[in-house]
């Protein structure tokens, strides 16, 4: 059921209209968590946050571990339970980063508005894989691993390249055409009205569709490790990254992992060049110098011949 505690109602994942690129990135990251997360950029009102929450509810049955923009460092790193401390009991309170390691994902809403000191903390943990806390009487060091999923509105400012690079894939919210807009608004209004209907068939069908997607993704997760990546695809990836001036090697690694995840999601037995071509923009667009995150026809043309000759 796409409901959460506290009277929270999220549109079912299977009913989110459009945004196929965003959905694909989230699903690939779910099939292969080593991809390292997804960054979604888009202007206001493009259902970015709704999509992430709907996906988490569909895939895990609960809302994602969320780092809000005004989080304090004691909640991020962990600390002591205040009320217990008053009673003379020292009871540690787990921080969000540890919670995220348990669920495998940390969702940062409005990631470009996050305070710099928190970004630094997250970068430290994600890059070293170790959360070391030496503060307020705490002395701990734990190995943590989780993927970052973030949303941002570029109108409100950008992100440091170091943090950009930590997101495995980056996608831009698509501009909906008139038909899609109409379907989206109709769906949202229908959902709101169905919430008031006892035993709603609309919600039941949506839940069944969510379950089907979940089952398909779980199957892909099981299959993905058995899908080989031919050397030709690996070489193609390296050539494409070179042509696109991608900074570092993380983009190539992520692109290969994402192509493999896509093959698993499609039920293919082998990673093919078309899988790589599909995920290339997601893996490389934010790893180019002076990038505006655009991936237009010119960029397609730069790598097109590589895939035509295979």
């Amino acid at each position, binding site marked *: 059921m796409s409901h*959460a*505690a*506290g*009277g*929270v*109602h*999220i549109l079912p994942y299977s009913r989110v209209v459009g945004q196929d690129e965003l959905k694909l990135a989230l699903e690939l990251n779910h099939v292969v968590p080593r991809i390292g997360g997804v960054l979604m950029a888009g*202007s*206001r*009102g*493009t*259902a970015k*946050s*709704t999509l992430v*929450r709907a996906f988490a509810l569909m895939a895990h049955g609960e*809302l994602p571990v*969320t*780092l*809000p*923009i*005004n*989080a*304090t460092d*004691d*909640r*991020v790193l962990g*600390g002591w*339970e*205040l*009320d217990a*401390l*008053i*009673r*003379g009991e*020292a009871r540690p*309170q787990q921080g*969000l980063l540890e919670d995220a390691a348990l669920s495998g994902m940390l969702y940062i*809403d*409005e990631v470009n*508005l996050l*305070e*710099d000191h928190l970004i630094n903390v997250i970068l430290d943990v994600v890059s070293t894989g170790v959360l070391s806390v030496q503060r307020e009487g705490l002395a701990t060091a734990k190995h943590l691993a989780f993927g970052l999923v973030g949303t941002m*509105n570029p*109108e*409100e*400012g950008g992100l440091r390249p170091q943090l950009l690079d930590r997101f495995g894939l980056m996608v831009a919210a698509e501009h*909906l055409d*008139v038909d899609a*807009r*109409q379907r*989206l*608004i*109709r769906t*949202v*209004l229908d959902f*709101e*009205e169905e919430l*008031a*209907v006892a035993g709603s068939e609309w919600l039941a069908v949506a839940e069944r569709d969510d379950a089907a997607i979940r089952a398909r993704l779980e199957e892909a997760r099981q299959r993905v490790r058995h899908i080989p990546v031919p050397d030709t695809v690996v070489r193609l990836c390296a050539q494409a990254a070179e042509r696109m001036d991608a900074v570092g090697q993380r983009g190539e690694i992520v692109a290969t992992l994402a192509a493999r995840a896509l093959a698993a999601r499609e039920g293919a037995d082998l990673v093919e060049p078309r899988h790589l071509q599909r995920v290339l923009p997601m893996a490389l667009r934010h790893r180019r110098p002076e990038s505006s995150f655009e991936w237009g026809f010119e960029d397609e043309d730069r790598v097109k011949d590589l895939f035509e000759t295979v």
Partner: protein
Amino acid sequence: MVTPPPRDAPPPQGSRAPEPDEPVLRLTRLLACSAIEPRLAGVLLFDLEPHLIDPVAHLFAELLGITGPPLMLGAQTRDEDLWTRTRLRQDGGQVSVSTGPGPLIEADGRDGPPQLVVVPELTRLSVAGMRAAVQLLGSDVAVVEHTGLRHIARPRARWLAVCGSAEAAQLSPHLLDRFALRVPMAELRGARPRRLLTAVPALRHATEHIAPVSVSNDALGRVRTLLGPEAGIRRELALARLARTLAALDGDRAAEARHADEAARLIGLPGVAAPKTRALERGPSSGSSGRPGAGDRPDTDRDVPGAGREAEERPGGPGRPLEGPGPEEQVGADPAVVRDTPFPEDAVSVLRDFAPLRNLWQRTMGPAAARGAVVGSRRAEDLRDLAYVPTVREAAVHQRVRQTARFTVTPADLRSHLRAGASERLLVLLLDHTCRDAAWDWTHALTPFLQWAYTGRAAAQVIEVGGADAADELKAQSFSARNVLDPRVLTALERPAGRATPLAHGVHEAGRVLRAAFRQHGNALVEAWLVVVTDGRGNVPLTVSQSGRLAGQVGAEGVEDALGAAERIGAMDRTRVRTAVVDPAREPYGDLPFRLAAALGATVVTGRPAPETDDTGEPGER
């Protein structure tokens, strides 16, 4: 502090409260919709008279069934005031502390009325307050992770914010977009506050009998037509939800196109005709006793021949006013242009602060760090600027652990104030409009100073001399701005020239501003620039400007007075005041700017580029 009035009892059967005028009806009906529908939680009123904020808040509180005071947010609002509430209790001989959800979220997940949040001036709201609005308004879920508190629930608070339409474009579109109901309310000016409450009993009665309502495809199509193809999804959804809520309020089973029209009319969307028949005349329907607003008095401004045909056509675009643009020379925000639209930021283009929802990225830890407004506390690094209450609270937490006989404060408990960044720099711009001519644009000469002010987050003071539309042409005009992005600065730079040049008064005013700034900010003001753009010719003596009386020949008295005032500025602290005179290179008295610069101790900047030479080697025309 706003306190709701006692609730009115429902009107006796068969009686009807006096019908208020149209803007009042619109407002009450909109607030009722927001009270009913949590997805319409944000109400933003443009150009509401300040003295009406309190009664409107009363009205909203009454419709929500709130008995306590609303939560007021302003420039001083901190995260600590919003998200958590720490309570200290004396329990026998012990002090105990408990932390729970703060005022903004404490009603979430509970029965009873929601919280009412009032923002009297949205443009002055602190970054913490703006971020709270972005996080909560229109969100499916509010996640709070703050000082030991974890809170995940659906936000219920209703927001009532007020903003000048001319200033709306300075705000983050991200923030504006979160307010579902945005309404121009300048026409409420003449309303008497008490009349706002006359419709409450009927509306409260109507809101208690709400049935689920669907939205027809006709209504959705009408919404799209009304808003135009460029409107964002949120605007379309908000209008559709408002239409649905209006239908529910009227007891209809489905929202139709006419409900979309009424929704558009309620939020003041331009080009929507008033209904041809008064809804009240259709007779009462179930659950809509009184139905205020549905039978609005026709708007006299829009009740014109052809209005019905206009309703069939899409207006000129989202938020585009029907009136033509303002005068061409008007560069900054023009209230006449942006009024009467719920989306004034679409109609006005002004410079907006970069990343307005981020806290200041540039701060020095010098003297100013101990002078800004208190925005929180932090662990103390020295004994300056200690915050006593947070210190005691911190110490209270550790008392049981320490097991000392008396309440003990250790150095580790000490907390100091965390202060907002205060301006450490000031740009004083003295603009003599009469020194310009058609061939010279002074913007290029001023750009380096404006860039310095922007990157240094400097406050700005603009002094104008000889402007065409000056209230008193014998006096200099002056205004202070938070920074150079203030639209008034751009307007001043483009203002056409008048006749008189009270330069002496302008220089005198510049000296007064600088002295006041250093007195007010003391050591916090690190650096100030005074930039004077003038040809040095002033034809108004200082005494004439100060007295407002012009008598007889003035001769060179105005120029001499300006030089005298400049010398007094030149005698100020040279380590923190820097001065420049931009020379417009006008003849025949080309030496006057240099004399003024000498008196100020200023650098002379060549304002006009060197004359171009043509093929014959002669200077070209300027």
